[in-house]
C-alpha cells in the first residue's frame, strides 16, 4: 500500500525491493530470451503465399488491414475511445492563445499545409506497395492540425458538428465494410478478392481522417465547443461528501 507513496520515509525500502525484483525479472527474462528455440518461418511464409489475394503489396499493410484486420478495427476503436475519454476528462481545451497569431506563422502555415496534406495523401497511398499507410499518414496530417491549433485558427467553428463525425468515420466505415462483406461472403471482414484493394483503400482513407483528427484532439485536449460549466453541473449529480470520503 505504501509503495505509491514515494515521498514517504520508506522510499529506501521500496527502492531496495524494486531493485531486487526488477533485477530478478530482467535476468529471468534475459535467460528465457537467450534459450528461445529457433524462430519459426511458418507465419512469414503463410503471409508471403497469400499476398497475391490480399489486395495490397506491402506485407505489413496486408497483415494490418486484411489478415488481422479485426485487430486494427478494434485498435481504431481504442483511438476513438481515447479521444472520448480525454474529452470527458478535460472539458476545456489546453490551447487557447487569445492573441492573434503572428504573420510569420500564418505565412508558414500557408506554405506548409498544402505540403503536409500532399505528403499525408502520398503516404496513405504508398502504404499499398511500400512502408506507409493510414497510421503514418494520419500522424503527419495531425502534425498539420497541431500547427493550425497553435496558430489559434478558429477550429471551433469547424469543430461544432463535423468534429465528432470526423472522429468516428474511420471506425464506422470499418465496421460497415466488415458487416457488408460478412453479408456477401459469410465471414466478418472477408473482402471479395477482386475488390480487396479498393475496399482496403476506402477503409484506410476513412481511418486516416479519423486518426488525424483524433491525434490533433488528443493534443489540444478538450473540446473547444464545451464550456467548463458542463463539469460543474456534473458535480451536483454525484454528491459524495468529500470531507468525510476523503478522510
Amino acid at each position, binding site marked *: 500500500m505504501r509503495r505509491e507513496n514515494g515521498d514517504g520515509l520508506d522510499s529506501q525500502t521500496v527502492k531496495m525491493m524494486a531493485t531486487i525484483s526488477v533485477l530478478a525479472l530482467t535476468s529471468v527474462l534475459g535467460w528465457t530470451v537467450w534459450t*528461445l528455440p529457433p524462430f519459426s518461418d511458418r507465419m512469414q511464409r503463410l503471409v508471403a503465399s497469400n499476398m497475391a489475394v490480399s489486395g495490397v503489396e506491402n506485407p505489413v499493410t496486408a497483415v494490418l488491414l486484411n*489478415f488481422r484486420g*479485426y485487430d486494427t478495427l*478494434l485498435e481504431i476503436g481504442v483511438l476513438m*475511445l481515447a479521444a472520448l475519454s480525454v474529452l470527458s476528462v478535460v472539458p476545456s481545451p489546453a490551447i487557447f492563445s487569445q492573441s492573434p497569431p503572428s504573420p510569420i506563422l500564418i505565412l508558414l502555415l500557408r506554405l506548409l499545409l498544402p505540403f503536409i496534406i500532399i505528403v499525408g495523401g502520398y503516404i496513405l497511398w504508398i502504404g499499398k506497395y511500400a512502408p506507409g499507410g493510414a497510421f503514418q499518414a494520419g500522424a503527419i496530417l495531425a502534425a498539420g492540425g497541431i500547427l493550425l491549433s497553435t496558430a489559434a485558427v478558429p477550429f471551433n467553428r469547424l469543430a461544432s458538428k463535423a468534429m465528432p463525425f470526423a472522429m*468516428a468515420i474511420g471506425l464506422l466505415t470499418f465496421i460497415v465494410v466488415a458487416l457488408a462483406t460478412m453479408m456477401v461472403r459469410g*465471414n466478418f471482414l472477408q473482402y471479395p478478392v477482386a475488390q480487396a484493394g479498393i475496399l482496403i483503400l476506402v477503409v484506410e482513407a476513412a481511418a486516416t481522417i479519423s486518426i488525424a483528427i483524433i491525434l490533433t484532439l488528443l493534443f489540444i485536449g478538450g473540446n473547444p465547443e464545451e464550456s467548463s460549466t458542463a463539469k460543474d453541473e456534473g458535480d451536483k449529480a454525484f454528491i459524495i461528501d468529500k470531507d468525510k470520503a476523503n478522510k
Partner: protein
Amino acid sequence: MSLSEILQPVTLPAWIVSLPLLAAVFSFVLPRIRVGAGIFTAIITPLMVVFLGREIFIHGAIQMQVGGWQSPLGIALYADGLSAAMLGITAVVIGSISFYARSYFSGVAASRYFWPLWMFLWASLNALFLSGDIFNLYVTLELLGLSAVALVALSPTADALSAAMRYLLVSLTGSLSYLMGVALLYAANGTLSIKLLAAAGLSSPSIATAFALMAAGLMMKSALFPMHFWLPPAHANAPAPVSAVLSALVVKASFYILIRLWLVIFEPFINPSAAQLMGALGAGAIIWGSVQALLAERLKLLVAYSTVAQVGYLFLVFPLSSIHQANQTAWQGGLYFVFSHACAKSAVFLAAGTVIYSFGHDRIKELHGIVRRMPVSMFAFALAGVSLIGLPPSGGFIAKWLYLNAALTGGQWWWCVLIIIGSLLATAYIFRFFSRAFSYSPEVVEERPVPWIMEWTALGLALCALILGFIAPAVTTLLDAGNPF
C-alpha cells in the same frame, strides 16, 4: 435477403461485437439519440446472445475465421459454452444496469460521454469473451481498461480522479506484462491462436516465463491480493452503475482469460505448485478483503472490499481443480462464483448507489433506519447478501457447495475451513450494515426522490442471483457445450 440469411448462426459473434460498437459510435456522433441507442442495444444484444447460446447448446461450439483466413494467419472468433455463459451474464448485468443508468444520469452533463463509453465497455467485454487469439485478447484488454478508467473518471471528485489514475497505471502495467508473455509465446511457437498453441506441444523455459508474465498481468487486473490496492478506491468512487459493472464483470474478464489460457494451453506444463500459490493468494484476499469490509465506514467501500474477498474465491479454483477427481466440480464451482457474484454484487452496488442518489452520502453510521425509506433497495441488498454469504437458496450457495465438495473429494480439507471462515466474515460485514439499516431513527433526513426503475433494477439482479440457485443443472450443461474441460 431475409433476416435469417443475414443472421446465420456463425455470424452471431460478429454481430454481438459490432452492435455495441456501432451504438458507441452513434451515441457519440448523434448525442440526441444516445440514450435511445444505449437502450436499444440493451434490448437487442441480449436477444442475440440468447440465440447464440441456443445454437451452442444444440450444435456445439461456433468458430468464425475473421476475414476467412485460417487460423495461424487470421484471427478466430470462438464461442463455446463458457463464452456463451460469460456473454449471457454480461448481457443480463449491463442490459439491466443500462435502465438504471438512464435514470441515474438523466439530466447530468456526464451523460454526454457515459453512453458512448458504456457501449465501448460492452463491446470490449463481448469481444474479449469471443476471442480465440492471444494478441487480439490484448487489444480487447486495452479497450476494456481504457473505457473502464474513463467511466470511473466521470465522477468528478478528487478521489475518483486519483482512483482512476491509479487504476489506469495498474491496468497498463498489467497489459504490458501480458503483452510480453504474448511476445514470448509468439517467438517460441510462431502462432497467436489459442487452439494452435495448445496443439503446438510447447516446451523450453519460455512457456513458464510466458505463463508467469501473463498470469501476473491478469491477476493485477483482477485485483488478486496483494495487488488489490487499486480496486477499493476505484470501485468505491465511481458512479454507481460503473462500480456495479466493474465489480460484476470487469475484474472477471481478466480472470476469464486466465482460466481460458490455463485450461487450454498451460495446465499440463506448469508446476502444480503454481496452482497452490494462486490458491494461497486467494485465501489472503478472502481474509484481508472481508476484514477491511468489516472495518469500512462507507457503504460503497464496504462493498468494494467485499469484491476483493470474492475475487479470492475465484482463484481457489486453481488448487481445487488440481486433484483429478475433483476437477469438474471445482470448475463448475468457480464459474458459479463468477455468475452469482456478478448478479449479487451489481445488485448491491446499485442499491448503494441509490442510497447515495437519495441521501447524498453513504456513511454507514448515519444510515439509521433507511430500510423504511427505501424498502425495495434494502430488500435487494438483503437478497444479494444471501448470495454473497452463500446461504441457500442462492447461486452463491451452489458455488460454495461445489467448492466444498471438490475440496473434500480431493482431500484438501483446509480450503473448507477457509470457506467457512470467509462465509462467517461475510455474514458479519453484511449484518453490520443491516443492524444500522434496521435500527430506529426518529430524525427526518432530507432526501431526493428515487425513480422506481433504479430500485427495481437492483431487485431484479438480486433475484437473478437467487434464481441461479435453482437452475444449476441447465447452467452446467451449457458450460459443458464444446468446453475444454
